[in-house]
């Protein structure tokens, strides 16, 4: 059941990102809410649910915007899994945890995307992409994750406490 709800929320975030947020760009750059949602879920809920969110989100982006399926699927799933496993035993309400994860994930996403889709085609001007795309997006995402993470954290905690109560009553 929880996975079905996560699946629906994933689709909603995808729609929000692709048809609302991407219309408003600053210097040609938009924040990647989808990546931030996947990361937040992976940090709070652990690697299993993070991996699920990453796979669904990557597949959605591949399905509707890419020449082939596989690139975003791999990158999102990998980032979500790494974030999930490495943040498993950390305190969740520290502000630096999502910030560091956001910066690291944006860098990993863009480097992997560059290597898979640009570098292998023969473009070697890496510094142009670093200045034009990666750095502005890192800043945008770092601001975005504060909103995403600190709205998701109480929601997930509330749902967890409710489900625990429910289990206790039944037992």
């Amino acid at each position: 059941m929880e996975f079905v709800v996560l699946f629906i929320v994933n689709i909603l975030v995808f729609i929000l990102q692709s048809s609302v947020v991407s219309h408003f760009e600053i210097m040609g750059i938009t924040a990647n809410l989808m990546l931030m949602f996947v990361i937040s879920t992976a940090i709070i809920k652990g690697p299993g649910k993070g991996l699920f969110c990453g796979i669904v989100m990557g597949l959605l982006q591949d399905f509707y915007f890419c020449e082939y399926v596989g690139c975003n699927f791999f990158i999102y799933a990998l980032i979500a899994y790494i974030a999930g496993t490495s943040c498993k035993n950390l305190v969740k309400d520290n502000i630096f945890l999502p910030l560091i994860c956001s910066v690291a994930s944006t860098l990993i996403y863009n480097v992997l995307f560059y290597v898979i889709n640009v570098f292998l085609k023969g473009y070697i001007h890496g510094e142009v992409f670093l200045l034009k795309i990666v750095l502005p997006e890192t800043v945008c995402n770092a601001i975005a994750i504060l909103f995403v993470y600190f709205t998701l954290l109480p929601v997930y905690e509330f749902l967890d406490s409710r489900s625990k109560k429910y289990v206790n009553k039944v037992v």
Partner: protein
Amino acid sequence: MKKLLSKKRWIITLLVIISVVLAVFTYNRATGSKLEDTLAFVIVPLQNAGSSISRGIGNITSRFKGTDALSEENRILKDELLSARAEVSRLRMLEEDTRKLEALLQMSDNYPDYEVQGAYIISKDPGNWYKSFTVNKGSSSGIKKDMPVITDQGLVGKVSRVGVNYALVTSIIDDSEAVTSKSLRTGDICYVNGTFSKDDTCIMQYYDDKADFVVGDEIVTSQLSKIYPAGIRIGYITEFGGEGNGTVNSGLISPAVNFKNLSYVLILKNNFEQKPIEETTETESK
């Protein structure tokens, strides 16, 4: 720890294998799979709603523009309208002449009328790398792969994949696109590529050293192009040089279409794609 490490390794290996297999099987497909089409029945209506909301927000914010800027724009547009009217009346006379001459020569119509389908843009690529977008008309409205997409200002791109109720459009400023085109003034051939490194500009490349291009030349699609009809405006040359590599001359083109606030496009439903030779001979022999 060892157990955890091996589990990690397994999951990552599995991810790599699955994504490579998926990529091989789905590269350059013309239509969406069953799964995509099914999901699209849920997603596309919601995207329609979302994009109309963001269009509404855009309209509201543009209302707060200062009156000075608006009156300035008004003045510029009035000037443009005057010159456009003069141009239209001149072209009408030319058209009349051409029709008479064509009748004399008994030539067939060189520029067939296009059947056009209008479509709203419902979503843009979420990432910052590619410049593709989806529109709210698909194969149920008769859209097929490789149909040209235009606006009243010029060429936008082509349809690269079709679902039942949506179509993915790759724009000419996307890196994967290359359009065979020519200068309207001299008819010299050049190739227009999208580029990663500059926002909303295209690179033009030409091999002929004697070709006559000057800054400000209007570039249109040429008759050599496989999928675009000839004579659709692409943009204007802004500068020369740039990312040339010695054998190829290159320059920059600023597209006639403003890709930043694009919300409505026209899809030309005549398919201009030329069939491969084997295919035509096969059908003839049957």
